[in-house]
Protein backbone atom coordinates (compact mmCIF):
# COMPACT_ATOMS: atom_id res chain seq x y z
CA UNK A 1 0.00 0.00 0.00
CA UNK A 2 3.03 2.26 0.47
CA UNK A 3 3.49 2.25 -3.28
CA UNK A 4 -0.02 3.65 -3.81
CA UNK A 5 0.95 6.61 -1.66
CA UNK A 6 4.14 7.34 -3.58
CA UNK A 7 2.53 6.93 -6.98
CA UNK A 8 -0.31 9.19 -5.85
CA UNK A 9 2.16 11.81 -4.66
CA UNK A 10 4.13 11.68 -7.86
CA UNK A 11 1.08 11.89 -10.13
CA UNK A 12 -0.61 14.61 -8.12
CA UNK A 13 2.61 16.63 -8.10
CA UNK A 14 3.05 16.10 -11.83
CA UNK A 15 -0.26 17.89 -12.48
CA UNK A 16 1.02 21.07 -10.94
CA UNK A 17 4.48 21.22 -12.53
CA UNK A 18 2.98 21.46 -16.00
CA UNK A 19 0.69 24.32 -17.05
CA UNK A 20 -2.11 21.90 -18.01
CA UNK A 21 -3.48 21.85 -14.46
CA UNK A 22 -3.89 25.58 -14.27
CA UNK A 23 -5.42 25.79 -17.74
CA UNK A 24 -7.96 23.04 -17.01
CA UNK A 25 -8.90 24.57 -13.66
CA UNK A 26 -9.33 28.00 -15.23
CA UNK A 27 -11.50 26.68 -18.05
CA UNK A 28 -13.60 24.70 -15.62
CA UNK A 29 -14.17 27.68 -13.33
CA UNK A 30 -14.88 29.97 -16.25
CA UNK A 31 -17.49 27.70 -17.78
CA UNK A 32 -19.27 26.72 -14.58
CA UNK A 33 -19.11 30.26 -13.24
CA UNK A 34 -20.46 31.80 -16.41
CA UNK A 35 -23.33 29.39 -16.94
CA UNK A 36 -24.29 29.45 -13.29
CA UNK A 37 -24.33 33.19 -12.73
CA UNK A 38 -25.83 33.94 -16.15
CA UNK A 39 -29.20 32.67 -14.96
CA UNK A 40 -28.74 32.93 -11.21
CA UNK A 41 -30.05 36.47 -10.85
CA UNK A 42 -32.91 35.83 -13.26
CA UNK A 43 -34.29 32.98 -11.13
CA UNK A 44 -33.67 35.01 -8.02
CA UNK A 45 -33.43 31.89 -5.84
CA UNK A 46 -30.69 31.23 -3.33
CA UNK A 47 -29.67 27.72 -4.37
CA UNK A 48 -26.97 25.96 -6.37
CA UNK A 49 -29.29 23.74 -8.40
CA UNK A 50 -28.14 25.20 -11.68
CA UNK A 51 -24.50 24.77 -10.84
CA UNK A 52 -24.90 21.12 -9.95
CA UNK A 53 -27.25 20.54 -12.87
CA UNK A 54 -24.51 21.46 -15.29
CA UNK A 55 -21.77 19.53 -13.53
CA UNK A 56 -22.24 16.15 -15.28
CA UNK A 57 -21.88 17.82 -18.69
CA UNK A 58 -18.83 19.91 -17.74
CA UNK A 59 -17.22 16.94 -16.01
CA UNK A 60 -17.78 14.81 -19.13
CA UNK A 61 -15.19 16.76 -21.03
CA UNK A 62 -13.07 18.30 -18.26
CA UNK A 63 -12.29 15.04 -16.45
CA UNK A 64 -11.14 13.08 -19.53
CA UNK A 65 -8.81 16.02 -20.20
CA UNK A 66 -7.43 15.64 -16.69
CA UNK A 67 -7.00 11.87 -16.89
CA UNK A 68 -5.88 11.46 -20.50
CA UNK A 69 -2.18 11.71 -19.69
CA UNK A 70 -2.13 9.29 -16.76
CA UNK A 71 -1.35 6.19 -18.82
CA UNK A 72 -1.03 7.45 -22.40
CA UNK A 73 1.94 9.65 -21.63
CA UNK A 74 3.78 6.81 -19.91
CA UNK A 75 3.01 4.43 -22.75
CA UNK A 76 4.19 6.98 -25.27
CA UNK A 77 7.50 7.89 -23.62
CA UNK A 78 8.16 4.33 -22.49
CA UNK A 79 8.39 5.22 -18.80
CA UNK A 80 5.63 2.66 -18.35
CA UNK A 81 8.34 0.02 -18.67
CA UNK A 82 10.39 1.64 -15.92
CA UNK A 83 7.35 1.92 -13.68
CA UNK A 84 6.34 -1.71 -14.08
CA UNK A 85 9.81 -3.13 -13.57
CA UNK A 86 9.90 -1.57 -10.13
CA UNK A 87 8.30 -3.64 -7.37
CA UNK A 88 4.72 -2.44 -7.84
CA UNK A 89 1.50 -4.32 -8.39
CA UNK A 90 -0.93 -3.38 -11.15
CA UNK A 91 -3.50 -2.38 -8.57
CA UNK A 92 -1.01 -0.09 -6.81
CA UNK A 93 -0.45 1.76 -10.08
CA UNK A 94 -4.15 1.93 -10.96
CA UNK A 95 -5.17 3.08 -7.48
CA UNK A 96 -2.37 5.63 -7.19
CA UNK A 97 -3.22 7.22 -10.50
CA UNK A 98 -6.96 7.07 -9.85
CA UNK A 99 -6.65 8.77 -6.46
CA UNK A 100 -4.39 11.44 -7.96
CA UNK A 101 -7.04 12.15 -10.60
CA UNK A 102 -9.84 12.34 -8.03
CA UNK A 103 -7.74 14.57 -5.78
CA UNK A 104 -7.07 16.87 -8.70
CA UNK A 105 -10.79 17.16 -9.50
CA UNK A 106 -11.33 17.80 -5.78
CA UNK A 107 -8.79 20.61 -5.94
CA UNK A 108 -10.66 21.95 -8.95
CA UNK A 109 -13.91 22.02 -6.97
CA UNK A 110 -12.44 23.84 -3.97
CA UNK A 111 -12.68 27.34 -5.51
CA UNK A 112 -16.36 26.73 -6.29
CA UNK A 113 -17.03 26.56 -2.55
CA UNK A 114 -17.03 30.33 -2.75
CA UNK A 115 -20.39 30.18 -4.63
CA UNK A 116 -22.44 28.83 -1.71
CA UNK A 117 -20.59 31.15 0.68
CA UNK A 118 -21.45 34.21 -1.39
CA UNK A 119 -25.00 33.06 -1.97
CA UNK A 120 -25.60 32.45 1.71
CA UNK A 121 -25.17 36.20 2.19
CA UNK A 122 -27.69 36.94 -0.53
CA UNK A 123 -30.55 34.84 0.76
CA UNK A 124 -31.54 31.86 2.86
CA UNK A 125 -29.45 28.98 1.50
CA UNK A 126 -30.47 25.43 2.28
CA UNK A 127 -27.15 23.73 3.07
CA UNK A 128 -28.50 20.18 2.73
CA UNK A 129 -28.58 20.08 -1.08
CA UNK A 130 -25.22 21.90 -1.18
CA UNK A 131 -23.49 19.25 0.94
CA UNK A 132 -25.28 16.51 -0.97
CA UNK A 133 -24.26 18.17 -4.21
CA UNK A 134 -20.60 18.19 -3.29
CA UNK A 135 -20.69 14.58 -2.10
CA UNK A 136 -22.38 13.69 -5.38
CA UNK A 137 -19.84 15.72 -7.32
CA UNK A 138 -17.01 13.75 -5.74
CA UNK A 139 -18.73 10.45 -6.50
CA UNK A 140 -19.37 11.57 -10.07
CA UNK A 141 -15.75 12.70 -10.32
CA UNK A 142 -14.55 9.32 -9.05
CA UNK A 143 -16.52 7.39 -11.65
CA UNK A 144 -15.61 9.72 -14.52
CA UNK A 145 -11.96 9.68 -13.45
CA UNK A 146 -11.91 5.91 -13.50
CA UNK A 147 -13.53 5.93 -16.94
CA UNK A 148 -10.95 8.45 -18.15
CA UNK A 149 -8.19 6.34 -16.66
CA UNK A 150 -9.51 3.30 -18.46
CA UNK A 151 -9.58 5.22 -21.76
CA UNK A 152 -6.03 6.37 -21.12
CA UNK A 153 -4.82 2.83 -20.54
CA UNK A 154 -6.07 1.79 -23.97
CA UNK A 155 -3.88 3.99 -26.13
CA UNK A 156 -0.57 5.78 -26.22
CA UNK A 157 -2.16 8.80 -27.87
CA UNK A 158 -3.50 11.31 -25.35
CA UNK A 159 -5.98 12.84 -27.78
CA UNK A 160 -7.49 9.47 -28.59
CA UNK A 161 -7.68 8.75 -24.85
CA UNK A 162 -9.47 12.06 -24.33
CA UNK A 163 -12.02 11.37 -27.06
CA UNK A 164 -12.75 7.82 -25.87
CA UNK A 165 -13.15 9.03 -22.28
CA UNK A 166 -15.35 11.92 -23.30
CA UNK A 167 -17.54 9.69 -25.49
CA UNK A 168 -18.18 7.26 -22.62
CA UNK A 169 -18.81 10.02 -20.06
CA UNK A 170 -21.11 11.93 -22.38
CA UNK A 171 -23.11 8.83 -23.22
CA UNK A 172 -23.57 8.07 -19.52
CA UNK A 173 -24.64 11.65 -18.87
CA UNK A 174 -27.07 11.93 -21.74
CA UNK A 175 -28.46 8.41 -21.84
CA UNK A 176 -31.59 9.22 -19.81
CA UNK A 177 -32.35 12.22 -22.01
CA UNK A 178 -32.41 10.18 -25.20
CA UNK A 179 -34.69 7.49 -23.95
CA UNK A 180 -37.80 8.76 -25.69
CA UNK A 181 -36.64 6.91 -28.79
CA UNK A 182 -36.95 3.62 -27.02
CA UNK A 183 -39.98 1.48 -26.10
CA UNK A 184 -41.54 2.06 -22.71
CA UNK A 185 -40.55 -1.36 -21.42
CA UNK A 186 -36.81 -0.66 -21.62
CA UNK A 187 -37.08 2.81 -20.16
CA UNK A 188 -37.18 1.95 -16.49
CA UNK A 189 -34.07 -0.16 -16.78
CA UNK A 190 -31.97 2.13 -18.96
CA UNK A 191 -32.83 5.17 -16.90
CA UNK A 192 -30.79 3.68 -14.09
CA UNK A 193 -27.69 3.56 -16.30
CA UNK A 194 -27.57 7.34 -16.57
CA UNK A 195 -25.01 9.15 -14.45
CA UNK A 196 -27.08 12.32 -14.65
CA UNK A 197 -30.12 10.56 -13.22
CA UNK A 198 -28.26 9.32 -10.14
CA UNK A 199 -26.35 12.53 -9.67
CA UNK A 200 -29.64 14.47 -9.85
CA UNK A 201 -30.95 12.47 -6.91
CA UNK A 202 -27.93 13.12 -4.72
CA UNK A 203 -27.68 16.79 -5.58
CA UNK A 204 -31.25 17.27 -4.35
CA UNK A 205 -29.82 16.38 -0.95
CA UNK A 206 -31.15 12.82 -0.88
CA UNK A 207 -28.30 10.42 -0.34
CA UNK A 208 -29.76 7.10 -1.42
CA UNK A 209 -27.63 3.98 -1.16
CA UNK A 210 -28.68 3.00 -4.70
CA UNK A 211 -27.14 6.13 -6.16
CA UNK A 212 -23.97 5.79 -4.11
CA UNK A 213 -23.74 2.15 -5.14
CA UNK A 214 -24.15 3.14 -8.78
CA UNK A 215 -21.16 5.47 -8.71
CA UNK A 216 -19.02 3.09 -6.69
CA UNK A 217 -19.72 0.16 -8.97
CA UNK A 218 -19.12 2.29 -12.06
CA UNK A 219 -15.72 3.28 -10.65
CA UNK A 220 -14.93 -0.28 -9.73
CA UNK A 221 -15.81 -1.63 -13.18
CA UNK A 222 -13.72 1.01 -14.96
CA UNK A 223 -10.74 0.50 -12.63
CA UNK A 224 -10.99 -3.24 -13.06
CA UNK A 225 -11.03 -2.69 -16.82
CA UNK A 226 -7.90 -0.58 -16.48
CA UNK A 227 -6.21 -3.43 -14.63
CA UNK A 228 -7.21 -5.82 -17.42
CA UNK A 229 -5.84 -3.42 -20.04
CA UNK A 230 -2.52 -3.39 -18.17
CA UNK A 231 -2.52 -7.16 -17.94
CA UNK A 232 -3.14 -7.34 -21.67
CA UNK A 233 0.02 -5.33 -22.36
CA UNK A 234 2.40 -7.64 -20.50
Amino acid sequence: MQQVKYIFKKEFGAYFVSPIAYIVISIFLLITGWFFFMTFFLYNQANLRNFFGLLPITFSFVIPAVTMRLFSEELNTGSYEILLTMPVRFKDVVLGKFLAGVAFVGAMLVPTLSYPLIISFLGPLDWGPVIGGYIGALLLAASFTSIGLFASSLTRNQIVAFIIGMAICFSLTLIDKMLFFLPQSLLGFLEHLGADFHFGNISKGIIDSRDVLYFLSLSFIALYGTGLAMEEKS
Partner: protein
Amino acid sequence: MIHAENLTRYYKDLCAVDRINFDIQKGEIMGLLGPNGAGKTTVLRMLTGYLKPTSGTIQVKEYGIDTHPLQIKKLMGYLPEAAPLYQDMLVYDYLHYVANIRELERQQKMPRVRHLADLCGLNGVMHKPIGELSKGFKQRVGLAHAMMNDPEILIMDEPTSGLDPNQIVEIRQIIKEIGKEKTVILSTHILNEAEATCDRVMIINQGKIVADGSMDTLKQKGRGEDLISISLRNAEYQSVEKELCAINGVVSVAEDDGEDEAMKVKVVCKSTTDLREEIYMKVKATDWILLELTRETQTLENIFQDLTKEN
Protein backbone atom coordinates in the same frame (compact mmCIF):
# COMPACT_ATOMS: atom_id res chain seq x y z
CA MET B 1 20.96 -17.45 -9.99
CA ILE B 2 18.76 -17.19 -13.06
CA HIS B 3 17.35 -20.21 -14.77
CA ALA B 4 15.28 -19.96 -17.94
CA GLU B 5 13.68 -22.93 -19.55
CA ASN B 6 11.96 -23.16 -22.92
CA LEU B 7 11.39 -19.44 -22.90
CA THR B 8 9.11 -18.45 -25.78
CA ARG B 9 7.42 -15.21 -26.64
CA TYR B 10 5.09 -14.44 -29.52
CA TYR B 11 3.91 -10.98 -30.58
CA LYS B 12 0.66 -11.99 -32.24
CA ASP B 13 1.96 -14.38 -34.92
CA LEU B 14 5.54 -13.21 -34.82
CA CYS B 15 7.84 -15.40 -32.80
CA ALA B 16 10.35 -13.11 -31.10
CA VAL B 17 11.95 -15.63 -28.78
CA ASP B 18 11.86 -19.30 -29.60
CA ARG B 19 12.29 -21.92 -26.84
CA ILE B 20 15.57 -20.77 -25.38
CA ASN B 21 17.27 -22.19 -22.29
CA PHE B 22 20.02 -20.64 -20.24
CA ASP B 23 21.47 -20.39 -16.78
CA ILE B 24 23.25 -17.38 -15.40
CA GLN B 25 25.52 -17.76 -12.39
CA LYS B 26 26.01 -15.28 -9.63
CA GLY B 27 28.70 -12.70 -10.35
CA GLU B 28 28.68 -13.16 -14.10
CA ILE B 29 28.68 -10.27 -16.52
CA MET B 30 26.72 -11.61 -19.42
CA GLY B 31 26.44 -9.90 -22.77
CA LEU B 32 23.49 -10.58 -25.01
CA LEU B 33 24.49 -10.06 -28.61
CA GLY B 34 22.52 -10.21 -31.77
CA PRO B 35 21.45 -8.28 -34.86
CA ASN B 36 18.51 -5.89 -34.74
CA GLY B 37 15.25 -7.65 -34.05
CA ALA B 38 16.94 -10.80 -32.81
CA GLY B 39 14.94 -10.80 -29.59
CA LYS B 40 17.46 -9.34 -27.16
CA THR B 41 15.13 -6.77 -25.66
CA THR B 42 12.30 -9.28 -25.46
CA VAL B 43 14.48 -11.66 -23.45
CA LEU B 44 15.46 -8.88 -21.05
CA ARG B 45 11.87 -7.69 -20.72
CA MET B 46 10.77 -11.19 -19.81
CA LEU B 47 13.55 -11.50 -17.24
CA THR B 48 12.43 -8.28 -15.58
CA GLY B 49 8.82 -9.41 -15.52
CA TYR B 50 7.63 -6.61 -17.80
CA LEU B 51 6.48 -9.08 -20.45
CA LYS B 52 5.00 -12.46 -19.72
CA PRO B 53 6.50 -15.39 -21.60
CA THR B 54 4.04 -17.07 -23.96
CA SER B 55 5.39 -20.31 -22.59
CA GLY B 56 8.34 -21.49 -20.58
CA THR B 57 9.56 -20.58 -17.13
CA ILE B 58 12.02 -18.21 -15.52
CA GLN B 59 13.37 -18.81 -12.07
CA VAL B 60 15.41 -16.25 -10.18
CA LYS B 61 16.98 -17.66 -7.05
CA GLU B 62 14.15 -19.66 -5.55
CA TYR B 63 11.38 -17.49 -7.00
CA GLY B 64 9.31 -18.28 -10.07
CA ILE B 65 8.37 -15.33 -12.23
CA ASP B 66 4.64 -16.08 -12.30
CA THR B 67 4.31 -16.83 -8.60
CA HIS B 68 6.63 -14.20 -7.06
CA PRO B 69 7.04 -11.37 -9.58
CA LEU B 70 7.33 -8.77 -6.82
CA GLN B 71 10.18 -10.52 -5.03
CA ILE B 72 12.06 -10.86 -8.31
CA LYS B 73 11.56 -7.20 -9.14
CA LYS B 74 12.98 -6.33 -5.74
CA LEU B 75 16.18 -8.22 -6.56
CA MET B 76 16.61 -6.54 -9.90
CA GLY B 77 17.58 -3.19 -11.26
CA TYR B 78 16.65 -2.49 -14.84
CA LEU B 79 17.75 0.14 -17.31
CA PRO B 80 15.57 0.00 -20.41
CA GLU B 81 16.83 1.04 -23.80
CA ALA B 82 17.25 4.84 -24.13
CA ALA B 83 16.27 5.34 -20.45
CA PRO B 84 12.65 6.51 -20.84
CA LEU B 85 12.19 8.61 -17.71
CA TYR B 86 9.63 11.17 -16.58
CA GLN B 87 10.53 14.26 -18.56
CA ASP B 88 8.97 16.83 -16.24
CA MET B 89 10.52 15.63 -13.01
CA LEU B 90 13.68 17.03 -11.51
CA VAL B 91 16.53 14.55 -11.23
CA TYR B 92 16.56 14.98 -7.45
CA ASP B 93 12.80 14.39 -7.14
CA TYR B 94 12.96 11.45 -9.49
CA LEU B 95 15.70 9.68 -7.54
CA HIS B 96 13.79 10.22 -4.31
CA TYR B 97 10.64 8.90 -5.92
CA VAL B 98 12.51 5.76 -6.97
CA ALA B 99 14.00 5.43 -3.47
CA ASN B 100 10.47 5.58 -2.07
CA ILE B 101 9.00 3.05 -4.47
CA ARG B 102 11.98 0.78 -3.85
CA GLU B 103 11.14 0.95 -0.13
CA LEU B 104 14.51 2.12 1.11
CA GLU B 105 14.77 2.75 4.84
CA ARG B 106 13.97 6.31 5.78
CA GLN B 107 17.49 7.17 6.98
CA GLN B 108 19.11 5.42 4.00
CA LYS B 109 17.35 7.40 1.29
CA MET B 110 19.40 10.58 1.41
CA PRO B 111 22.85 8.91 1.61
CA ARG B 112 21.94 6.46 -1.15
CA VAL B 113 20.77 9.21 -3.51
CA ARG B 114 23.94 11.19 -2.74
CA HIS B 115 26.14 8.16 -3.31
CA LEU B 116 24.51 7.40 -6.68
CA ALA B 117 24.74 11.02 -7.73
CA ASP B 118 28.48 10.85 -7.05
CA LEU B 119 28.93 7.49 -8.74
CA CYS B 120 27.05 8.49 -11.89
CA GLY B 121 28.34 12.05 -11.99
CA LEU B 122 24.95 13.68 -11.55
CA ASN B 123 25.81 16.34 -8.98
CA GLY B 124 25.70 19.17 -11.49
CA VAL B 125 22.23 18.37 -12.82
CA MET B 126 20.29 17.35 -9.71
CA HIS B 127 17.94 20.31 -9.95
CA LYS B 128 17.24 20.18 -13.66
CA PRO B 129 14.18 18.58 -15.25
CA ILE B 130 15.10 15.24 -16.83
CA GLY B 131 13.64 16.35 -20.17
CA GLU B 132 16.28 19.07 -20.47
CA LEU B 133 19.24 16.74 -19.99
CA SER B 134 21.43 15.49 -22.80
CA LYS B 135 21.16 11.87 -23.79
CA GLY B 136 24.27 10.87 -21.86
CA PHE B 137 22.99 12.40 -18.66
CA LYS B 138 19.59 10.77 -19.11
CA GLN B 139 21.39 7.47 -19.44
CA ARG B 140 23.26 8.18 -16.20
CA VAL B 141 20.03 9.02 -14.41
CA GLY B 142 18.67 5.73 -15.74
CA LEU B 143 21.72 3.96 -14.38
CA ALA B 144 21.28 5.59 -10.97
CA HIS B 145 17.63 4.52 -11.10
CA ALA B 146 18.63 0.93 -11.85
CA MET B 147 21.16 0.79 -9.00
CA MET B 148 18.94 2.45 -6.40
CA ASN B 149 18.17 -0.68 -4.40
CA ASP B 150 21.71 -2.04 -4.73
CA PRO B 151 20.30 -4.86 -6.84
CA GLU B 152 21.73 -8.35 -6.93
CA ILE B 153 20.96 -8.52 -10.61
CA LEU B 154 21.45 -5.54 -12.87
CA ILE B 155 19.89 -5.71 -16.31
CA MET B 156 20.75 -3.14 -18.94
CA ASP B 157 19.44 -2.81 -22.46
CA GLU B 158 22.09 -1.18 -24.64
CA PRO B 159 23.58 0.84 -21.81
CA THR B 160 26.05 2.77 -23.95
CA SER B 161 23.91 3.65 -26.96
CA GLY B 162 24.03 7.33 -27.75
CA LEU B 163 26.91 8.13 -25.46
CA ASP B 164 30.14 9.82 -26.45
CA PRO B 165 33.40 7.81 -26.28
CA ASN B 166 34.39 9.21 -22.89
CA GLN B 167 31.03 8.39 -21.39
CA ILE B 168 31.17 4.91 -22.90
CA VAL B 169 34.46 4.26 -21.15
CA GLU B 170 33.01 5.59 -17.88
CA ILE B 171 29.90 3.48 -18.09
CA ARG B 172 31.93 0.39 -18.93
CA GLN B 173 34.06 1.03 -15.89
CA ILE B 174 30.97 1.33 -13.72
CA ILE B 175 29.63 -1.92 -15.17
CA LYS B 176 32.90 -3.72 -14.46
CA GLU B 177 32.95 -2.30 -10.96
CA ILE B 178 29.44 -3.52 -10.25
CA GLY B 179 30.12 -6.85 -11.93
CA LYS B 180 32.69 -7.73 -9.30
CA GLU B 181 29.97 -8.59 -6.80
CA LYS B 182 26.73 -8.50 -8.75
CA THR B 183 25.24 -10.33 -11.66
CA VAL B 184 25.04 -8.10 -14.69
CA ILE B 185 23.17 -8.83 -17.90
CA LEU B 186 23.51 -6.37 -20.74
CA SER B 187 22.46 -6.37 -24.34
CA THR B 188 24.42 -4.69 -27.07
CA HIS B 189 25.14 -4.89 -30.73
CA ILE B 190 28.57 -3.39 -30.34
CA LEU B 191 30.98 -6.33 -30.34
CA ASN B 192 33.91 -4.48 -28.82
CA GLU B 193 31.76 -3.60 -25.89
CA ALA B 194 30.93 -7.20 -25.20
CA GLU B 195 34.58 -8.07 -25.57
CA ALA B 196 35.61 -5.31 -23.19
CA THR B 197 33.09 -5.87 -20.43
CA CYS B 198 31.60 -9.33 -20.50
CA ASP B 199 32.77 -12.62 -19.00
CA ARG B 200 30.31 -14.50 -21.08
CA VAL B 201 28.43 -13.77 -24.28
CA MET B 202 25.29 -15.23 -25.68
CA ILE B 203 24.56 -14.56 -29.32
CA ILE B 204 20.96 -14.82 -30.37
CA ASN B 205 19.54 -14.69 -33.83
CA GLN B 206 15.88 -14.90 -34.84
CA GLY B 207 14.89 -15.75 -31.30
CA LYS B 208 17.31 -18.65 -30.89
CA ILE B 209 20.62 -18.97 -29.10
CA VAL B 210 23.31 -19.57 -31.69
CA ALA B 211 26.32 -19.34 -29.41
CA ASP B 212 26.93 -19.21 -25.69
CA GLY B 213 30.20 -19.13 -23.82
CA SER B 214 33.18 -17.03 -22.88
CA MET B 215 34.80 -14.80 -25.49
CA ASP B 216 37.70 -17.22 -25.98
CA THR B 217 35.63 -20.32 -26.45
CA LEU B 218 33.52 -18.44 -28.95
CA LYS B 219 36.56 -17.49 -30.95
CA GLN B 220 37.73 -21.08 -31.04
CA LYS B 221 34.30 -22.20 -32.07
CA GLY B 222 34.48 -20.07 -35.20
CA ARG B 223 35.40 -21.49 -38.55
CA GLY B 224 38.53 -23.11 -37.17
CA GLU B 225 40.48 -21.57 -39.98
CA ASP B 226 43.13 -18.91 -40.08
CA LEU B 227 44.03 -16.65 -42.90
CA ILE B 228 47.63 -15.93 -43.82
CA SER B 229 48.31 -13.30 -46.40
CA ILE B 230 51.62 -13.08 -48.18
CA SER B 231 53.05 -10.49 -50.52
CA LEU B 232 55.64 -11.76 -52.96
CA ARG B 233 57.73 -10.23 -55.67
CA ASN B 234 59.45 -11.97 -58.46
CA ALA B 235 57.09 -14.95 -58.42
CA GLU B 236 54.54 -16.63 -60.64
CA TYR B 237 51.19 -17.53 -59.25
CA GLN B 238 51.03 -21.08 -60.59
CA SER B 239 54.27 -22.14 -58.99
CA VAL B 240 53.37 -20.37 -55.76
CA GLU B 241 50.07 -22.21 -55.66
CA LYS B 242 51.78 -25.51 -56.29
CA GLU B 243 54.37 -24.98 -53.60
CA LEU B 244 51.99 -23.75 -50.95
CA CYS B 245 49.33 -26.37 -51.52
CA ALA B 246 51.92 -28.97 -50.76
CA ILE B 247 52.16 -27.81 -47.16
CA ASN B 248 50.22 -29.99 -44.76
CA GLY B 249 47.30 -28.06 -43.25
CA VAL B 250 46.70 -25.61 -46.07
CA VAL B 251 43.05 -25.62 -47.10
CA SER B 252 43.11 -23.30 -50.06
CA VAL B 253 45.24 -20.70 -51.82
CA ALA B 254 43.93 -17.75 -53.76
CA GLU B 255 45.39 -14.76 -55.52
CA ASP B 256 44.38 -11.37 -54.28
CA ASP B 257 44.69 -7.94 -55.88
CA GLY B 258 48.31 -7.02 -55.45
CA GLU B 259 50.21 -3.80 -55.88
CA ASP B 260 52.21 -3.04 -59.01
CA GLU B 261 54.92 -5.61 -58.94
CA ALA B 262 54.03 -7.56 -55.83
CA MET B 263 51.66 -10.47 -55.85
CA LYS B 264 49.30 -10.99 -52.96
CA VAL B 265 48.30 -14.48 -52.00
CA LYS B 266 45.76 -15.46 -49.42
CA VAL B 267 46.27 -18.79 -47.77
CA VAL B 268 43.48 -20.35 -45.74
CA CYS B 269 44.69 -22.92 -43.28
CA LYS B 270 43.57 -24.83 -40.25
CA SER B 271 43.96 -22.83 -37.07
CA THR B 272 45.29 -25.74 -35.04
CA THR B 273 48.87 -25.13 -36.13
CA ASP B 274 50.75 -22.02 -37.05
CA LEU B 275 52.00 -22.44 -40.61
CA ARG B 276 53.94 -19.22 -40.93
CA GLU B 277 57.23 -20.92 -40.32
CA GLU B 278 56.70 -23.55 -42.99
CA ILE B 279 55.54 -21.00 -45.50
CA TYR B 280 58.63 -18.96 -44.81
CA MET B 281 60.85 -22.00 -45.33
CA LYS B 282 59.15 -22.69 -48.68
CA VAL B 283 59.67 -19.13 -49.80
CA LYS B 284 63.27 -19.20 -48.64
CA ALA B 285 63.97 -22.22 -50.81
CA THR B 286 62.98 -20.28 -53.96
CA ASP B 287 64.19 -16.98 -55.32
CA TRP B 288 60.93 -15.15 -54.49
CA ILE B 289 61.19 -12.01 -52.47
CA LEU B 290 58.99 -11.98 -49.42
CA LEU B 291 57.52 -8.54 -48.67
CA GLU B 292 54.88 -9.36 -46.15
CA LEU B 293 53.61 -12.27 -44.11
CA THR B 294 50.69 -11.81 -41.72
CA ARG B 295 48.35 -14.12 -39.92
CA GLU B 296 44.81 -13.07 -39.11
CA THR B 297 42.94 -15.03 -36.51
CA GLN B 298 39.18 -15.08 -36.52
CA THR B 299 37.82 -11.77 -35.40
CA LEU B 300 34.66 -11.46 -33.41
CA GLU B 301 33.02 -9.76 -36.36
CA ASN B 302 33.62 -12.80 -38.53
CA ILE B 303 32.17 -15.14 -35.96
CA PHE B 304 29.20 -12.88 -35.44
CA GLN B 305 28.53 -12.70 -39.15
CA ASP B 306 28.87 -16.44 -39.58
CA LEU B 307 26.48 -17.18 -36.78
CA THR B 308 23.83 -14.64 -37.63
CA LYS B 309 23.88 -14.44 -41.40
CA GLU B 310 22.77 -17.98 -42.10
CA ASN B 311 19.12 -18.78 -42.66
